């Protein structure tokens, strides 16, 4: 088996309810979708933003540990966060966090049974994108006003 795995192959090792092993097809993968459709693009971005935000929590842990450790370590965190790369990471985090939050609210509405029609889905998807841009800018305007 040297050829790349086909997502349509039943190559996923799963278990039946009684515990016996069963080969199942893999969940639809990136290459199975038209990436520019509102439906799939938003779904993929919701997962990607969740993963990115998860990784970014390293900064939260670092910040809190430094705060508990003393002024020296805390100064290092402050230096990194206000450096060019640090600010770039924080800005990216803001985009990712707002997107994941707004797309999460969209999912919550679906869970409650609202917004399944195609026009409603398009509108809510656009609202998430516009809202992410607007809230990111707003967050940084406020942050920079407080900071400077």
């Amino acid at each position, binding site marked *: 088996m040297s050829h790349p*795995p086909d997502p349509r192959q039943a*190559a*996923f*090792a*799963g*278990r*039946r*309810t*009684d515990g016996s*092993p069963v080969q199942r097809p*893999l*969940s639809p*993968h990136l290459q199975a979708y038209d990436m520019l459709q509102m439906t799939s693009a938003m779904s993929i971005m919701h*997962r990607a933003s*969740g*993963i990115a*935000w*998860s990784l970014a*929590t*390293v900064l*939260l*842990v670092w910040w*809190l*540990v430094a*705060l*508990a450790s*003393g*002024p020296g370590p*805390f*100064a290092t965190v402050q230096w990194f966060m206000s450096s060019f790369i640090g600010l770039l990471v924080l800005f990216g985090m803001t985009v990712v*966090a707002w997107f994941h*939050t707004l797309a*999460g*609210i969209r999912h*919550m509405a679906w*869970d409650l049974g609202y917004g399944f029609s195609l026009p409603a889905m398009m509108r809510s998807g656009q609202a998430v994108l516009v809202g992410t841009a607007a809230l990111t800018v707003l*967050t940084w305007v*406020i*942050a920079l006003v*407080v*900071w400077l």
Partner: protein
Amino acid sequence: MRTPLGRVRGLGSAKSGTHHWWMQRVTSLALLPLTLWFVYAVISLSGASFAQTRNFIGHPVNAVLMLALIGLTFHHINAGLQVVVEDYVRAERSRIGILLLIRGACWLAALISGFAVLRVAFT
């Protein structure tokens, strides 16, 4: 053949029914206000000194909210990453191995940051 009732009693192949899915929703709902509070906190602390930041995080209300944020955040992260891994990692052994690694990392991250908050609050 198993009857539908038998399947429900066994809570399906995951053996936990809808608990995982439900907790993902519960934590996300709780994280909405907590994350907004955290964004407010971080913005108001931008440029703050070591002592000012310590005073803020050490304040009883903020320390408790931080602990809630930490616990719920890492629960939600574990739940979310678990679903991604379960969807796309084919082989059973590597799937379980990666899930355990993620779970361990989430627990450690939560305990480390929670301990740091407590230390700031009590010293």
